[in-house]
């Protein structure tokens, strides 16, 4: 099962956007998410999924879809 729904909930809770506007193509900029939002999202993802997201990986995220794919992969690797 994809982590998409949980990632969505985390992003919505932190950037306070409408859940329905979030698509795989949504960028942090479009969501008005600044650096403090992004750090909060990363910490929440790490806590929620029990994974570690190194800074160099996080810098490669360009949109919401990248985050979901990354989290799916990390969760699968953990298993």
């Amino acid at each position, binding site marked *: 099962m994809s982590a998409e729904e949980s990632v969505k909930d985390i992003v919505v809770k932190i950037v*306070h956007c409408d859940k329905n506007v979030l698509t795989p193509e949504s960028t942090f900029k479009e969501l008005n998410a600044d650096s403090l939002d992004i750090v909060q999202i990363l910490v929440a993802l790490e806590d929620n999924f029990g994974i570690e997201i190194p800074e160099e990986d996080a810098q490669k995220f360009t949109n919401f879809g990248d985050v979901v794919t990354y989290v799916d992969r990390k969760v699968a690797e953990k298993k």
Partner: protein
Amino acid sequence: MEIPRVVVTGLGAVTPIGLNIDELWSGLIAGKSGIRLISRFDTTNFPIKIAAEIASDFDPTKYMDPKMIDRTMRAVHLAMPALKEAMSSARLDMNKEKKERVGVVSSTMVETGYLSRGPELLARLGPKRADPLFITKSGPSTLAMQIGMITGANGPNTYVDSLCASGSDAMGAALNFMRLGYADVMIVSGSDASLEPVTIAGMNIIGALSREPDPQKACRPFDLNRSGFVYGEGAAILILESESHAKKRRAKILAEIAGAGHSFDAYSETAPSAETQALAMSMALKVAGVSPDDIDYINAHGTATRLNDTTETKAIKIALGEKAYKVPISSNKSMLGHIISAAGAIETIASIMTINHSLIPPTINYETPDPECDLDYVPNVARKTEVKTCLKNSFGMGGQNCCLVIKKFEG
């Protein structure tokens, strides 16, 4: 360079007796107490069960977007409606202002409930799981920072901390910025939401808080049977402007801030000193160019601790001489409680309203005279009288004193 006169053109407040200026003022002149049983936390094991809380239906979502609410402390939440009210009453349109000529001075206290999360998270989860908001959210400078961001003011932006004198000290600091020519407009904000279990427990253990069970009667400044102060929370915003700037944009001028006096006891962490309090009062008078005879009203620090009220009485006698026995003195804290770092700012607003309405709010719960407090404390009922010049006292626990002279604007 000519030193500019500094005037007040806008006011906003969020207090235990009202969530705007009109409610605050009608409560003060009616002798309404804002002190109630504490509802913000469980007081089961606390000897103190009363405080002057903001009404529980206060809802920051009415004034702020949800992300800003997440990113700020309660003191910022309380200040937002006051900021809106003050800006609108001053009719100050930031789009028409030179933004670098508008500054902010704030006073606030750290909120330990949130602050304690930092070390707790670090101990439990290690440095990689620190709270990303910890630095930008918890510091006392964030109130001035947020007000600056919202208004776009690029001028001086700072905060002062002298505990219970902070609110008046913020006024004094803003006054000096303006007199030295750093700004045409200063937004002064005092906001305090440190009414938390750890502060109540700490203030109680040093014997500063009233232990009376009846909230309405709990705070009795200058009364023989007073037993301490009542902790409060709230916010105040004042818009200060140079006289020429206010006149140029035809703003309604509410009062003049004519002078501030500052001193420090250098004596004790808790016990006050009448001599140095008097020094701050005399300095404020001198800076304002007024004499004791000009003072029509004193808005007292008046906490209702045994020591404060006798010491303040003594200090007023030292500073004002024979005039001390003729000047009406009252304590807003009898109704508002002690809103620590915001008290001076809220009480400055009350002083300005007193001048504009020719009506002095009473000291409520005054029943039994104390031989050591033998001045006129305007007991229990508001008094109609012209007030052209008011002295506002604020004394920080630890001995940091700041007094302001506020005048009816004539000119």
